[in-house]
């Protein structure tokens, strides 16, 4: 293994380093094949006596028209990563790092500019618990118009709404309904349609099927699959390895604020290299095949008090002495893995 990099060396990046930022901009601008590029992103939540490093140096590239699945357990920072990309972090702040969509920066520009040029137009989001994100006192139609107004949509509003509803196979009649008149699956479709209103290139979907029944869940996933076929990129945030495999070309496994393994779906699922990925796959029950499951001891570390070294150290069945130091980021065929075993 000659391709051993330290994360810092590979993606050394500082938001104030203008020269580097321009370099980055130019280089990713010339690589037309990259849709989304995230560079050493750090997001911290600060409370009176602690700093929670929810996202702590996350970097990955996503090829043109590809979709990515972000997998991790609760509190690993996967939702924060999504919120950071659409600049909707509440109570926290992006400390450093940059993200580029089609070569255009998402984080280095002003809020105003981001709203004007990017949010909902290029990148939109289906929020977690989307079924509760509709306002109960307004009709669906009013809520669609609110989105269009908020983003100063200049085109044909009726056509935009009609197209978005058609994309999620909902009848036009839902426009006159109030959220409580719709079933969970229909509400989820409405929320997805809202994310599609301005024709974004990338939709971030945070646990879009979690509260839904099994059959409805499958329908929503095939809907997302269909939209992806139509050329949209999806960033699917989920704890469910099964759901993620339906739609993600690339998979990022997150643990305690860091991506521990990144690669194509097949590489990560069929040949997992990080012990955490291996453990997750072994802990997932399957309807066919073996009934044996392997459990993992302990719980993830608190993100407010992480020291140096591999964050999986306490729970890793293969932990060694040198794992007390930060693990190297080793390139794999389709991505990277952060583990001393791969050195």
């Amino acid at each position, binding site marked *: 293994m000659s391709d051993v990099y330290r994360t810092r060396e590979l993606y050394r990046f500082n938001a104030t380093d203008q020269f580097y930022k321009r370099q980055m901009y130019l280089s990713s601008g010339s690589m037309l094949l990259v849709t989304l590029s995230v560079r050493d992103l750090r997001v911290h939540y600060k409370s009176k006596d602690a700093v929670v490093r929810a996202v702590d140096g996350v970097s990955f590239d996503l090829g043109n028209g590809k979709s990515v699945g972000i997998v991790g357990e609760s509190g690993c920072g996967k939702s924060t990563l999504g919120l950071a990309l659409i600049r909707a972090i509440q109570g926290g702040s992006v400390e450093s790092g940059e993200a580029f969509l089609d070569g255009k920066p998402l984080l280095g520009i002003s809020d105003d500019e981001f709203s004007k040029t990017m949010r909902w137009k290029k990148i939109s989001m289906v929020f977690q618990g989307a079924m509760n994100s509709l306002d109960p006192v307004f009709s669906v139609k009013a809520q669609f118009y609110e989105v269009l107004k908020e983003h100063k949509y200049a085109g044909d509003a009726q056509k935009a709404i009609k197209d978005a509803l058609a994309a999620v196979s909902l009848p036009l009649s839902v426009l006159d309904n109030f959220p409580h008149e719709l079933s969970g699956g229909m509400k989820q479709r409405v929320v997805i349609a809202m994310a599609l209103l301005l024709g974004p290139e990338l939709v971030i979907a945070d646990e879009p099927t979690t509260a839904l*029944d099994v059959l409805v869940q*499958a329908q929503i996933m095939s809907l997302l699959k269909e939209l992806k076929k139509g050329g949209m990129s999806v960033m699917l945030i989920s704890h*469910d*390895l099964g759901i993620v*495999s339906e739609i993600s070309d690339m998979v990022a496994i997150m643990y305690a604020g860091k991506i521990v393994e990144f690669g194509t779906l097949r590489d990560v699922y069929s040949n997992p290299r990080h012990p955490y990925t291996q453990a997750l796959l072994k802990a997932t029950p399957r*309807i066919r095949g073996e009934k044996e499951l*392997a459990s993992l001891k302990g*719980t993830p570390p608190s993100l407010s008090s992480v020291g140096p070294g591999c964050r999986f150290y306490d729970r890793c069945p293969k932990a060694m002495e040198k794992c007390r130091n930060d693990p190297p980021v080793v390139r794999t065929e389709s991505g990277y893995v952060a583990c001393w075993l791969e050195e």
Partner: protein
Amino acid sequence: MADRKSQVEEILAVSDLRKYFEKKAFLRRLEVIRAVDGVSFSIGTGQTLVLAGESGSGKTTIARLILGALEPDWGKITFSGEMTGLDRESIARIRRECQMIHQDPYASLDPRMRVIDIVREPLDIHGIGRPAERREMALGALRDVKLDADDVALKYPHMLSGGQRQRVAIARAIAPKPKVIIADEPVSMLDVSVRVGILELMKELQERDGISFLYITHDLSTARYVGDEIVILYMGKIVEYGKIDDVLLHPAHPYTRALVEAISEPDPDNLTTEKKIHVNPTLDINPYQGCRFRARCPYAVERCSDEPPLEDIGGGRFVACFVKPD
């Protein structure tokens, strides 16, 4: 159905259980919701029966009927051979012998009580053991669920992780030495890496103490890991009932089949294959007449507007379907 269980002693049985709710609809018209509509099943000692279904299938209502939190409209519940009623004595007995683990360990534990008091409370309520012994019994239950009893006993629930909290909930359930534990989605709120530990713990306690489990879930993959038998519910009725591997690997009812088809397993081939689920979009027909599933069933024939009986198809397997497509 009783002969089937001849090899294992039957601990809990319900027969023809019914519970209807009334809902005031538009213009004071009363709408009747048949939450549980003629359900019969039994659990053998030391066995796990899975009650599976989507939301609104009546699975939680059944648990509440068994524990006497709701009064059944019809049917009987038999607990170790004795019929239970709604008199104080029989409710006290079933609530002692039959404990419950709830879905959300963040909501089911009183935030103002210390862990030791949470686990001890059922012992005090049911008057189990001498008051002086109860503390030791509660500590023993905490050790049984693999918690460091001395460490967690004086803590409050908010100081524990989700997995630890669910272990406390299990300790509370096993402290009065029940014969049956009703577990309502006990791992659905927990992280994948923590789930297996809880499931293994439940299995271990079952083997050691011969506890029977009624495991309520919508997650068929996890169900297969814990269960011996499974009941598939659809709108308050049993559509299929049998040994868990038989039902899940070779589903006979179209609804069971659709549920199994809808499961996404972590398989890289999913990305390129189209999932085929045999189910129609819902049409508006009276759901309480004939087969409940027929509006969504692609195999429905005219006869399905009659009520299909739960028919014995051999091997301890029961299916309520006229068509039974292969």
